[in-house]
């Protein structure tokens, strides 16, 4: 425990190593997918990776990496850490009050300098808004973007399935809109990561696993 100017900070181990490895692998993968995706959709405006083929190959490799990493993350939390439901599924209290309280903090109390109503612990890492966002991202958007991407990588052998779900245009449109949503999430996610005790405390925590937290003297 460190004490300075009447404020006390303590170090808490929040994020275990496998999750941190997954996070940074995923981050690299999603950034690569966003950049290569821009070249794939708008080749006459963006030539970032030299050739179109290089962008497609890199997009495919990054896509497969993110897919594998997603399944590893899912099985780690479900079967090894056994905290998937606890961490990511909002409870009744989160829905009734947590969402409103947390939104009010982000959009109002934060600017008045009030303290974050949620304190992260290893068993309760996320506030209500984070839980809802990650639930949507990890359990809806990511699986959908992975499935649509895998179908798009194998159009010829899976043509029958593609036609069954509404055709290749529906698939491409869905993949593109999901990718844009991921980019939007990425912007908000990176920015929110700077709203910790210090602008870099959340970032450091995702690198080392330890979060420095402010505890006011009683």
């Amino acid at each position, binding site marked *: 425990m460190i004490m300075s100017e009447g404020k006390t900070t303590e170090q808490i181990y929040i994020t275990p190593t496998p999750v941190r490895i997954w996070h940074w692998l995923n981050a690299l993968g999603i950034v690569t997918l966003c950049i290569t995706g821009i070249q794939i959709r708008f*080749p*006459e405006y963006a030539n970032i990776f030299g050739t179109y083929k290089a962008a497609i190959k890199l997009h495919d490799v990054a896509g497969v990496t993110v897919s594998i990493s997603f399944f590893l993350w899912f099985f780690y939390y479900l079967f090894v850490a056994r905290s998937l439901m606890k961490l990511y599924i909002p409870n009744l209290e989160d829905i009734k009050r947590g969402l409103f309280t947390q939104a009010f903090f982000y959009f109002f109390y934060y600017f008045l300098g009030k303290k974050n109503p949620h304190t992260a612990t290893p068993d309760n890492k996320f506030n209500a808004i984070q839980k809802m966002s990650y639930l949507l991202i990890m359990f809806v958007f990511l699986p959908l973007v992975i499935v649509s991407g895998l179908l798009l990588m194998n159009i010829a052998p899976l043509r029958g399935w593609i036609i069954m779900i509404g055709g*290749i245009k529906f698939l491409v449109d869905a993949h593109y809109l999901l990718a844009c949503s991921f980019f939007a999430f990425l912007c908000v996610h990176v920015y929110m990561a700077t709203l910790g005790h210090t602008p870099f405390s959340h970032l450091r925590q995702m690198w080392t696993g330890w979060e420095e937290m402010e505890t006011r003297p009683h």
Partner: protein
Amino acid sequence: MQGFLILLTAALLPMQIVLAADAATNDCLTCHSKNTIMNKGVHLYIDPLKYGLTTHSRIGCVSCHDNVTKRHPKDKVRPSRAKCQDCHAAVFTEYDQSKHGKYADCTDCHKPHAVKPLLAVSGRDINIQCAKCHEYTKMVKSHSKWLPQATLHIDALPCITCHTGSKNYVISMYMVKNVSGSSLGGVALASFEDLLPFLSEGEKVGTLIDIDGDGAISLSELKKFNKSRKYRSISLLGTMMPEVVTHNYDILDNRRDCTFCHASGPNAQQASDLAFPEKDGTYSRIPVEKGAILDILYGTPDFYMTGFTRSNTLSIIGALIAAGGLMVPILHGTLRFFTRNRRKEQ
């Protein structure tokens, strides 16, 4: 008056030649369209339906077999055969100088008594000719070395799309049927017989989509077809057909650059047509409204070329979502900057 007669004669001359050719051809086919002639040699049989569809049928049998007399076959004179280059000199020279010239003759690909015009065949019909020498699996394997999704490209495109020098292409759409019980990619070209259950008595196959029968398919007609539950088992797949076919069949390096096809942008190559299978095995084509292939969803739900047929509307919707995400840090960050002293005080 004299001038008028000369003009009239000149105008009617081709018709007279065709009529004369027709009469002579009918004489020939009297024997050569009978199955019994195959006893003397299979090559002597001419399928009148297939022959009737060829351009060659317009000039008639004796144009190529010019030593045939009225006494044939009693005169025992073996009919002469014209050489392809007698009429197609430029094409022959180009082909003869190509790598293919050494390995295959014109007739290996174009049977003179059954050859159809380019627009009357499907891309798959064209590829069947190529596959006589270039085995499908070997082609997939060799193309896979450099071409992403090689099977998709080889299945979707006629070989000549890349292996001829045409600079412009037309998007042609074909009807395919779902093949139940086959592999996951279970679709096959729909034949005229496959479409018959959807047609009323005497109805032309084109009217399945060209509802008003005006000889052009509008985007709304295309959407109606694609949304209809009645046609659920039929889909439209697209392919790129070269506007001009050359006979050099080179391996063109610029085709290895994906952007040759995939970066044309939504403003280029919007011309498309829809090919309908006819009873005689040929295809008739109806032009499709310009830009229909770029429609966001229902224009061509099963045809999309990445980087080329993207919808501008969808691109804008996606950009707005991305911009929404960017606005959060910009707006929140600005307020955060101006209220930074409050947090220090606390």
